């Protein structure tokens, strides 16, 4: 009897395994724990940064999603948002407080939202923004391998997107899902991360003024993990140029969640 129960439990466990990961939050994907290698590795911790497993939205937040948010949270409507939380460009691509632009698809990624707005949306959903480490960990995967960042063909593809104007914005879910099942991390819009303002800060740069060391001019690749990883340079540069109230026409976001 006991043996039979054990076998049954084992079978259940097996079934669970084959059915995939335990069901997480809707439309989110589990990214297993791993290591993120920052572009500028710390001298004190060159082994990379451990990233715990987490959930990430399979798709960027869409215009339709964001409309629901501003309906439920009027203080985030275009005419009512406090200037300190979003600059003048906030939702300027919409026609009104509750009316997305006519050329904008409801399932296109929402853009022209500030970091504060993205964060408030995530909180409202019971989620949060992903950190740089988490976003990069998820985005390193190509459609076929978790470490796509080491695949020159995949890098070339990303670079081609960086070189291509992405307007007008198309519906999400265009791209192939990556190894983890997440779409549109590349090829659609840039995305806010929780700690965008940590970009370019090394682990051991406490001396003020030293922080942008190596970003500008010919020193750009000095100390970088991989001088060929141009997409990582571009993302780092882009993030470090942002301020929390900036609303940019090709900058959206997606949410993450702890396990």
């Amino acid at each position, binding site marked *: 009897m006991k043996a039979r129960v054990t076998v049954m439990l084992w079978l259940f466990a097996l079934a669970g395994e084959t059915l995939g990961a335990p069901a997480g939050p809707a439309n989110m994907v589990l990214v297993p724990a791993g290591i993120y290698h920052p572009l500028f590795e710390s001298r004190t911790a060159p082994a990379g940064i451990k990233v715990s497993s987490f959930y990430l939205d399979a798709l960027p937040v869409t215009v339709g999603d964001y409309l629901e948010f501003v309906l439920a949270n009027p203080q985030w409507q275009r005419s009512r948002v406090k200037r300190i939380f979003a600059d003048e460009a906030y939702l300027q691509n919409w026609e009104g407080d509750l009316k997305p632009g006519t050329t904008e698809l409801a399932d296109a990624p929402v853009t022209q939202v500030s970091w504060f707005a993205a964060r408030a949306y995530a909180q409202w959903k019971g989620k949060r923004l992903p950190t740089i480490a988490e976003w990069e960990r998820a985005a390193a995967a190509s459609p076929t391998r978790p470490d796509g960042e080491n695949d020159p063909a995949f890098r070339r593809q990303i670079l081609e997107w960086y070189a291509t104007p992405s307007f007008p914005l198309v519906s999400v879910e265009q791209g192939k899902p990556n190894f983890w099942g997440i779409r549109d991390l590349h090829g659609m819009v840039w995305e806010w991360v929780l700690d965008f303002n940590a970009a370019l*800060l090394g*682990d051991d740069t*406490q001396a003020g003024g030293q922080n942008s060391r190596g970003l500008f001019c010919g020193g750009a690749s000095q100390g970088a993990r991989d001088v060929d990883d141009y997409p990582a340079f571009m993302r780092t540069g882009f993030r470090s140029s942002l301020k929390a109230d900036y609303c940019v026409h090709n900058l959206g976001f997606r949410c993450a969640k702890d396990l």
Partner: protein
Amino acid sequence: MKMKQLCYAASILAAVLSLSAAELKTNEVKHSCCQPMDASLKGLPEKSVYQLETVWTNDQNQAMQLSALKGRPQIVVMFFASCQYTCPIIVHQLKQLEEALPLGVRTNVGFTLASFDSKRDTPAALKDFRAQHTLPQLNWTLLNGDADGVADLAAVLGVKFKQGAQGQFAHSNVITLLNAQGEIVYQQIGLNPENQELVPRIEKLETH
């Protein structure tokens, strides 16, 4: 039959009602993003840093919002108490700045140090820091906040920061001058003892 239908309808209604009751309940627990405006924020300019509604704790263990700082110019700096490098220098610079102010102005300027280090800079640790650096109780405020509050304040002040593997914080050094309404009037970026801008800027605020 009719009775049965009625019961059925009633049970659906009950289910719907209980569902909306449950929804109401979850709505009650609102995040800081979605809370109704605090009365004390009324009349503050839209670009006031005091629009942030996060609750901080000072070294007297009192909970407070940043808007409690309004009413006089404030010098605001983010730091952490165990910092071995720039933070002691910045605090020293702030004390020098305070001494450089004319007496009548000095007593009406607040100095606020908000810590990056939610975990270690407890109110008690901040109290020790105050004692170590002999920071006057009258106009120096030391604040501990949660991770969200720290992120918010850093974001509005344009301070870059990042926690390192050993729990230390890498951060940019920014001294911010806020007017009585909490608007950013001037920022000194980096450690620059040669920078003499702050004193006249504060004096200018005081005479207006």
